[in-house]
């Protein structure tokens, strides 16, 4: 270690790898992975989300999963919940294609993709 700058950049890098264990104040993407979701391709959606976040280096976005919310005919579903917002955004019939748009438009630019939302809470 030759300088404080070196320590700082090391910290920044290591912090990203640990962001999962901290409350980052950023949105969480929840993939609904009941049997119905999985049968309709929820796993593929999940994998796409992960690789998309990875390629964009968005380590502070948490991805978790949960069970079936009851809207089986609309699976795969994902929920985007933002800290401080009471009602989360629920997207229906998500595909590996449109999930990329959700990440770009909603997660990165903060504009929910309203036409795919099941709940019309804006």
């Amino acid at each position: 270690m030759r300088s404080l700058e070196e320590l700082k950049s090391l910290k920044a890098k290591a912090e990203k790898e640990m962001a999962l264990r901290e409350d980052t104040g950023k949105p969480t993407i929840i993939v609904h992975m009941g049997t119905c979701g999985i049968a309709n391709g929820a796993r593929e959606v999940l994998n796409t989300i992960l690789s998309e976040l990875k390629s964009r280096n968005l380590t502070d976005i948490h991805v978790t999963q949960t069970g079936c919310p009851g809207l089986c005919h609309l699976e795969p579903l994902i929920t985007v919940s933002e800290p401080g917002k009471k009602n989360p955004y629920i997207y229906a019939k998500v595909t590996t294609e449109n999930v990329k748009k959700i990440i770009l438009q909603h997660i990165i630019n903060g504009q929910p993709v309203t036409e795919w939302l099941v709940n019309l809470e804006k």
Partner: protein
Amino acid sequence: MEFYRSHVLVCTGTGCTSSNSRSVISGLRKELADKGLEKEIQVIETGCFGFCNLGPIMVVYPEGVFYCRVSQDDIQEIVEEHFTKGRVVQRLLYHEPNTTVKTQEFNDIEFFKHQKRIALSNCGIINPEKIEEYIARDGYFALAKVLHEMKPEDVIEEIKKSGLRGRGGGGFPTGMKWNFAHKAQGDQKYVVCNADEGDPGAFMDRSVLEGDPHSVLEAMAIAGYAIGANQGYIYVRAEYPIAVERLRLAIEQAHKMGLLGKNIFGMGFDFDVDIRLGAGAFVCGEETALLTSIEGKRGEPRPRPPFPANSGLWGKPTIINNVETYANVTRIIRNGWEWFASMGTEKSKGTKVFALAGKIKNTGLIEVPMGTTLRTIVYDIGGGILNDKKFKAAQTGGPSGGCIPAELLDTPIDYDNLIAIGAMMGSGGLIVMDEDTCMVDIARFFLEFTQDESCGKCPPCRIGTKRMLEILTRICEGKGVPEDLENLETLAKTIKSAALCGLGQTAPNPVLSTLRYFRHEYEAHIYDKKCPAGVCKSLLSYKINEDKCRGCSLCARNCPAKAISGKVKEPFVIDPEKCIKCGACMEKCKFGAIERK
């Protein structure tokens, strides 16, 4: 860099390791690989969460779900339910005692709610075998700050103003100790860390070393800068293999990164740390004995003065501090003395880690602000007494300490209050006792320990503790005589004032404090030949109540000494000559016919 969606932290401290956390980890890794999830879910080994009786502990992030007592048989279900379908496995969640509530997230658990983690702030959060994770949580920034912005005098001033006192037992102000060593003349000085932790049942220091070894190394380097030393030694118990291994690894990694060694941060400061393994005696935790042991000699204490700050290791100025003391130092430097001094009581600042043990529902490791009452520790954090029995006393300070009776449950715990009530902080062992504990027997137990560990160098301790133990044993055996109590008190006072080191000077404490609060129990043993708690075997007798006995012969069949006889369907009798008072008959009897007096 790999991108994971979930981090699974599994404790690999000594507690969870002994409940097989390592096989849980290897089983989990295998199951994840089989399901193709190993690129999504990362398994991380971490340090102690403190909830040792519920081990192995597993925490799943980002949700923060807290699973307890996870066994290999649970792995498949966790992977299938939680990691593939996102459904929390309810049956493995923590169950609050006294309620039916199951708690999912670990910050919501009562056990953690009343705690304030400073020394333990990284334990259970980081992987102690990766220096990067320590750095991610501001590790080595205190050392950087000290070397870049502070003079040695500033560092000492900061520690002084924080009010930090030694966590190894004595409670001596740390800043003042550093100042003595800073002022002492000498071309070579040393920094020593006391990780001998000989107090039976205590494991605070072990958990810090296992869960956050770099915090100790960093603080030792800071101490080295403050006093002008560039060599440190950690004297650690040989019985702590995991801690020793993690320390070795931490030293190696810090060296590789140039955070130990020559010219740290390019600021011209050199610092090295070596490990010395303990020689396995309680007295080696006493500072002068410890230093003698590092020098390669037999670990025996010597008189002070001279104090180590002036003449320590190989006669050179040396500071010696406890593991937990060091663990606080880095946080004080980073957050400022005001932050630290804002916690605790007037004369005891910050927090204290306790190893909670005995007849209590939640045993484990806790860290609470100084001034927390014993009631909060026992009832809120500890969940109350096992089997809802009555609280009788708590013993703090181990063999050097004393007991706190129920009347004093509301005493705010700090150094001075504990001394005032005849106990002592010690290193942080806290043993809770219920109504079935005999206080004379407890005093005898601790004295047996100190007598055994007495190094024999000074007569007051060598001979005095032996005589005290003889008297206590006699009392427990029902052979006590009225003069015994007075003799115990005289011996205690003499040993306290005449013994060479802290071991002897504090050895009588458990006797004095039980005499102070539970004198009636001693008197019952001596005058009535009774043990009120029903513990001292020689004073017990078992009798069969003729009215309740149905003559089923179950007791007779279970008596290992063949002391019970009788005719079936008629009351049985116990032969007191043959009875060994094991209590097996009483346990077996279905009619409650056997009485113990």
